């Protein structure tokens, strides 16, 4: 018997903001904290917590530095992060496909 697609969902990735952070990071070499905050429309504290969760899971790497005198935080996605993102999207697609198939059969 096949597992239900939800069995493939990863709790770390399967959260709206964390999924969005990984999606943005996967589209660039690295992303600045401010850009993520503007795109996701979240508070600094909230974004920091999500980034920490993803970094602790090895899905993101965080770099701190300066642009002139302005402190900047950059994140970039790891290969594990790319795989986790691809797996999550495939799982979500499988769920939707299963639903569509069930709808067509009924």
């Amino acid at each position, binding site marked *: 018997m096949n597992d239900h697609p939800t069995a493939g969902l990863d709790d770390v990735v399967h959260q709206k903001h964390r999924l969005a952070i990984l*999606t943005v990071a996967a589209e*660039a070499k690295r992303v*600045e904290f401010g*850009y993520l905050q503007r795109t*996701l429309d979240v508070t600094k504290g909230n974004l920091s917590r999500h980034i920490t969760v993803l970094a602790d899971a090895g899905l993101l790497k965080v770099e701190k530095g300066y642009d002139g005198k302005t402190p900047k935080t950059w994140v970039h996605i790891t290969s594990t992060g790319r795989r986790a993102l691809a797996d999550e999207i495939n799982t979500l697609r499988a*769920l*939707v496909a299963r639903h569509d198939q069930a709808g067509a059969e009924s």
Partner: protein
Amino acid sequence: MTDDAAVTLLNEVARVRRRTRRDRHAYWPPMLLLGVLILAAPLVYGQTVPQPKLGVFTAVSTPIWRIPGTGLAYAPLQLFGPRFVLVADPTAVALYWLCVVVLGIAATMVWYRWRGSRVGLETPTRTFVLVGIAGLLYLLGILPLVATAVMFPLFGYFSALGIWLSAAIFVVTAVPSALALRGHERRPIWRDALGWAGMAIALLSASSLLFYASIEGFAPVLVIAVALLVLAMIERSALCGAIAVLFGIGALVANLYNMENVYFRLSGGYVEDPRLIAFAHLVLPAAVLIIGGAVAGVVARMAKP
């Protein structure tokens, strides 16, 4: 998890991805710059004094180095200079094209870095830079050497037999070699040796084809075309890809077709000024980049919220 929630999450991912790509796309200024540099190139194709007689077929040359002990004459700037158009200073033409490729790559890298730090999204330009540098080294090093050491002794400066033979050898060697070297598993030494030997022969035949494919003397435009195709892949942009493909077609036409024929059909006369000959060859690829870059710039401005 409900199916509606899955659809909502997927839509959100698609929306964020679209927005990120829109914010990250920055290819139009490099396109405009390259288009203008290509359009300005005819200015260095100064006329020789006195003019050669019509119908006299003469190849022109950039500086030639003799490789000690081999008897080989090697012209490193050969692929950057004019091939059949007679100009006052072929070296100036070659140096101009060398500068266009070097400046184009460097300016594109600097632009992306600056914009990435300003917007907060960095584009991975390493592949673009590596392809550009590899193309540059290939045109400066490998291709002139292959031409001097292999092609000229075998086929002369131009040969239809050379083209067909090179194409046939490329097909026969490239595909089996790629298959032999496929995968990461350990292979027998003989298979590795055969695979790499096949690849070397495939590279030789591809070099020969590229030499013939740039017969009109605008090989640097082909390097720019390859670099722009790589840029389109990095940018993951359909518009950038379409402009790069159109430019690639324009670059091939500029290198393969004698555009003086078009002028002759339109006016019934011959073009004598090398600046006009160069302009006739370069106007199409330059126009693709300038118009394409301008359109992409307008699209980028309109997409801003």
